[in-house]
Each structure stands twice: as structure tokens, then as C-alpha cells.
């Protein structure tokens, strides 16, 4: 069993198109265990009840945005060490700086494809 078979991922994005794009990339990479939520709050509640290895979240969301979600995750003992990849349309330095402070593991700029996603995940968890 390779890492990709065991890795549990949560995808968080308010747009079903983007969720579809992300999960499609995960399918292409061969990551099988993923679930998706469409807002930060729901994702947080779910993650604290049933944790995963890696969260892939959009930044731009109503309610909790991606970094606010990260902040909440880092503040909770169950999820504080979870891997976190931020998907963002504009990778502006201020945003990344905020992410760094919250120990964001990596980010991925839109638009992305499966190889880019794979590289991004591998930078966090090692070879899949």
C-alpha cells in the first residue's frame, strides 16, 4: 500500500466547480480517500470530529475563508498538526505571509492541473 492509498484528504471549496476540479485532480493522482465540504465552518466541525492528514482548501470563501479555517484548525488540538494546502487565485505576498505565520504547509495558485497538484502535495507529504 503506497502513501496515496492511505492518505486522507479533505477538500474545502464553496464552488462545486472548484471542488470538482480539485477532486478530479486527486482522482488523477490516485488519492482515493477524500471528502469535500463547501464551507469553512462545516469543514472545521467535521475535521475535529474525524481528522484527516491533509486539508486542501480554497482561500476565497464566504464565512470562514481559507486562512481563517487554517487558524481555527491550528488552534484545536486534534487538528493542529494537519497538513494544509491553500488554493488561491492571487498569490499575493501579504496573503502568503499570513499563511506562513499559521504554518501553512503549501499553496497552489489557480489554475492548476493534476501534475501541479501532485507536486504541491508531494512537497508536503513526500512521494506519493
Amino acid at each position, binding site marked *: 500500500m503506497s*502513501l496515496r492509498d*492511505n492518505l*486522507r484528504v479533505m477538500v474545502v471549496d*464553496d*464552488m*462545486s*466547480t*472548484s471542488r*470538482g*476540479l480539485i477532486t*478530479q485532480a486527486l482522482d488523477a493522482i490516485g488519492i482515493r480517500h477524500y471528502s469535500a*465540504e*463547501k*464551507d469553512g*465552518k*462545516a*469543514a*472545521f*466541525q*467535521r475535521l*475535529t*470530529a*474525524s*481528522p*484527516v*492528514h*491533509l486539508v486542501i482548501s480554497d482561500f*476565497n470563501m*464566504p464565512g470562514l475563508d481559507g486562512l481563517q479555517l487554517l*487558524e*481555527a*484548525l491550528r*488552534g*484545536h*488540538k*486534534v*487538528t*493542529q*498538526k494537519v*497538513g494544509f494546502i491553500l488554493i488561491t*487565485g*492571487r*498569490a*499575493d*505576498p501579504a496573503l*502568503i505571509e499570513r499563511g*506562513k505565520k499559521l*504554518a*501553512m*504547509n*503549501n499553496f497552489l*495558485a*489557480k*489554475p*492548476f492541473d493534476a501534475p501541479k497538484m501532485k507536486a*504541491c502535495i508531494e*512537497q*508536503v*507529504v*513526500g512521494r506519493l
Partner: protein
Amino acid sequence: MNANTDLREIFFNECEELLEVLSDGIAQMESGEASLDTVNAVFRAVHSIKGGAGAFGLDALVEFAHGFENTLDDMRSGKLETTPRIVELLYMASDRLADLVESARDRQECDPAESKSLLEQLAALSGGPSTMSSPSEPETEVDFAPMTLDFSLDLPDVGGSDGTHEFRFTPSKELYSSGNDPALLFRALSEIGEMNITADTSCVPPLLDHPWDQAFLAWDITLSSEKTQDDILEVFEFVDGMCQIEFKEIPHNPTEGSSRAEEPDPEPETVPQAAEPVQPPAPPVAEGIKPKKTGESSGPNTTIRVDLDRVDRLINLVGELVISEAMLTQSISEVTVPSGSKVETALTTLKQLSSEIQERVMAIRAQPIKFLFQRMSRIVRESSQATSKQARLTTEGEMTEVDKTVIERLADPLTHMIRNAVDHGLEKPEKRLELGKPEKGEIILSAAHRSGRVVIELKDDGAGINRPKVKALAISKGLIPSDLEMSDTEIDNLLFLPGFSTADAVSNLSGRGVGMDVVRSEIQSLGGRVSIQSTPGHGTTVTISLPLTLAVLEGMVVQVAGETLVVPTTALRETIRGRSATIHQMGSGDKVLAMRGELIPIVDLGERLGFRSTPQDLDKLVFLLVESDADKRTAIAVDRVVDQREVVIKGLEANYGRIDGVAAATILGDGRIALIVDTDQLAAPGPSRSSAPMFT
């Protein structure tokens, strides 16, 4: 790639929603009610469109959305104030964005010049194009080193990975009153793992003080199972919101670094909050294992996307169901069934069920008319610009639900009506001021459900119809004889005549060769009616009335020369028995019915449709008085009225062809086909007669 085409479709559907958010937001900015949340929502909408467009390589869309987003970003950060000028530009930009989305969906090219000039104007607001980064250029290099996860596949613990979950289940009274039974839930739980359950009756008051409709019981449950907390919650999915589930933390060897005491709590605490471990206070959302109330579970409104074809197939099947139900009813009525028998009860239940299914299925196709109305506000903006008039559109009842097909097919007629209202209805600003009216013309577009139909009204506060001019024009175009006496309504309805246009000069706006006649025929093909009322000096109201669905209509089942036919009740005003009616013979053999001082032409349905040629004794017939769109009355003579009922419309045009005087067909309870007559065509002079003038 199939998955990609699906996603693409989802994207464009989502775009429609986002564009709606966008125009709602801009409208709020315009009215000055916008908060920062609004600006954020508007920004997010544009940003999401850009993000999706990027994934599908829709460059023109990405580029425009990017520039638009920059402006919104400046508004968000307070660099730009909301001024009327900006709102105007935002409207234009959102219109443009909608265009780009549309052309991207249809895979068409869009003229880049318009985008460019708008982008320049937007950029100028934020202080010149220099501040604008192009979306195609690589994002500014950011200083970031990915952080490798200190990785092990062990997941942190959430209460009892040794397989023990402890929780308390407190049903509310709603759980009982909705017919749920805790015992069934416990049974489902016991299938997950070994369960130990204790009922807590401490809250139950003495029987004498016991309010009968309140719930007091709670249960403490210990479940040994490999399953996660989520799996347990799944059991309670159906009683979501009607109970409280409080998970207790089971102190347990943590795999993640946690400073908690290791010894398990010897005595299970009943108050979950007391089980909170000692932990530095985290932000309020992130405290301990929050007792998860299933009532506040995720997701606003959950929707799925379904192919329209599937819904239509379902609607078709439901139509068949209604027909078979009618057939069953009829065959049962033919055999003698003792009254009060089980067959009768079952049939009643079946009827109720099938009519409810029918209603629910139709509701799937129904959509709020809001989206269509929003598109109209753009038409108002464009038309008032083109005619240098000022107009404001107010919409009412935009949550009125209408069949999706109807909404789609209403777009063109409504667009045309609005252009007309601005172009011909409203006066120029100077003129309005002179008349003591507000400079800005008011256009009100409203929708409502009224007695089983959808009524859409377009009202303007303009000059009203210039009747002498309309009449003169109709005469000069040879549409009516010059000596014709006409009522105001009749004159107003001249606008619907083919080949009529009131503008002196064909303006580049409404005079595009489509007249109100096209509006009328489109509405009629939807089974609707359109009428116009006008008060000189005060404005014009155009009213469209449409059936709620396109699949069913209410009709009178009648018999003519041994044939069974259906007359839609929408146009029906009254029925008159032949022998109590006053009938006059006109010179050429035509007969008219005299009623309340009015002479109403009689059409013998059997003769008109060619079922019989010999004139009937009118005394023995029944007259159905129908009213056409032009308020013209006709008495349709039939042999007998059998019944009044809902019938399922089956189109004839696809299977057979168009028949003059026949709108469609239906299948009756006895399995026979009955034609549904088109009363408007019947009222119009038929092919058998010499063409008489329209207005007599």
C-alpha cells in the same frame, strides 16, 4: 473528456448564480445599502468566475474578470468610494461579464474591443492602468518554502479510537411528534457495535405535573465500535435537528502531543462540559471536542443538479399516471362497486397521491423568475441610454416560481416589451419635468400567482397610448377600415396586429421589425394571453397571463357530432343553454347570440371542425361563451357538456401536424383521444368562410 465537460457545465450553471449575486450586490450598492459584506460577496463572485474560467482556459473571461476584480478589490479596501459613476460602470462590467460567460458557454468569440475599453475605464478609476497586473503574467514571486509534514499515517484521536464512544442522546419533543422512535435508533446503533445504554429519567416530572406534550428522557450510551464519531452521527441523520447528541471525550493515550492527564475518568460524567480537558483557551470556535449538535450540521441548502431531460421524462410519466388513474376511475365506475368499499378508499388515496406527485414534479421545473427579471434591468439600462431617457426598473414578486421553459421563452417577449415601454412609453426627461412628473421614468415589472396562473405585469408611468395616432396609423396601413367605430380597448389592442409599429421613425431600438404581434404569438404559444391597458398621460400596463405548467390544462369535456372534445376553461366565460338564448339570423346565414345588448357570433364547433355539414337546431345545443385576447366574444355551440376536468396535454404537432382550430390532444379516462380546441382560432374567421375584417 467527459468529466471535464460535466464540470464545464457545472461551472456555467454556477456562473449564473454568481452573476445573480453580482447584480444583487451592485443593486444594493446603488441604493446605498451596501455593507462591506456586500462588496466582499461581489468580489468573491467575480473572483470565483475568474478562478473557474482559468481552469477551463477561457482567457477572455479571465482577463476581464481580473480587471473587474481589481476595481472591486480597491472598493473593498476602501481605496474607491461608491459613487453613481462607479455603480454605472460596475453595472456595465457585470453586463459584460455576463456576455463573456455566455459566449464562452456557447464557444463563440466575443469582440475584445468592448472588454478593453471597459477595462480601461475601470482601471482609470483606480488610478490608471499601471496598477493593474495582468492575469497572464506569472504571479509575483512569493517567498515561500513548502513545509513538509512531520508525517505519520496515524490520525489524531477523537474520542476513543480504542473503539469506545460515550455520548448522551436527548431527543426533543419534535422527534416524537414527527413519528420517530428512539428504539429504532438504538437498534441501528446496536448494529454498529456493542452498546451499553442507560435511560436518564431524572428529569421526568411526577405524573400529575407531567405536561403531556413535552419530552424529558435522555439516554447515556456507551458504544464499543471501530467506527468513527461520524458514523455514529449518521445513524441520527434522519432526526437531525430534533435531538441533541453530546459526545464525551474519553481520555485516552493521545498520539498527538497533548498534555492531558492519562488516567481515564473512572466515573462517567453526565454533564459533557465537565469533561472538557484542561487546555489553553483556544478561539471560541475551536474548543475541545465540541459537543456536536446534529441540529447545526453543515451545509446551507443542499441541492443536486439534474439533467433537464430526466425531469421531463418524469413529467411525461406523471402525465401517463394521471391518465391511467382516470382510466381506472372510469372502469371502476362501470362495474358496480358497493359504496364505502375498499376499492373506493384506495382509489381516493391513489387520486390524492397522483395529484400530489404531479404538483411536486411540476415544482421541480419551477424556478423563481428573479433571474429573468434581473436580465431585464439590463435591458432598461441599455434602452434608456440608447434613447437618452431616464428610467428606473422596480421588480416585484421576483421569487414567483414559473416553469423553466416558460422563463426561457419569456425572455424575448419581455425584452421587447421593455424596449417598447422605454422607447414609446416614457417621455423625454424635459417633457416629463414639464408635465410635473419625476425626471426619471418608472417601470414596474411584477409577477404573481393568481388563480392558478402566473400573471406578469409591465407598468410604465409614461404618456400612455396615443389612441388617435394608433388608429390613424392602422387605417393608413390598411389594417382596419377607415370608418370603423372602435372602443379604447380595441384601439389599444391594435398594437398586437401583425405589421404594426407606432414609432414615427423606426428607431434603432424597438423598431427592429419585431412588433407586439410577435410578443403576442410567443405568449400564446405558451398557452398564455397578453392584454394592454393604457391611460393617456399616466402610462401603460401590459399584462401577460400564463398557465402554471405547460403539461396540464383545465378543460370542459364536450361532445359534438359524436366526437369528444376539450375546450380550455381559460378563455371560457359562461355557458348558455340553447333554448334559453336569443338567436338572430344574419343575412348571409351567420347566426348571432343576443346577450345583454351585445351580438355575439356563433360558431358551431361540429361544423367548424368538419364533423358535420348540416346546420343543427341551435335550440338543442349548448353555447360556451369564450373570450379572445382582444376581448372579442364568441359563442361556441356544442351538443353537450360532459364534464370539467384537468387534462394532460399531448402535443399533436410533433406526431401529426398542425390542425386549424385544434391546439393539442389528450387521452381521456376511457382511453380515447380527445382534441383540445384552440378557442382563439375558432373565434377568428376560419378557412371555410370568406375573410371578414378582424374587428366587427
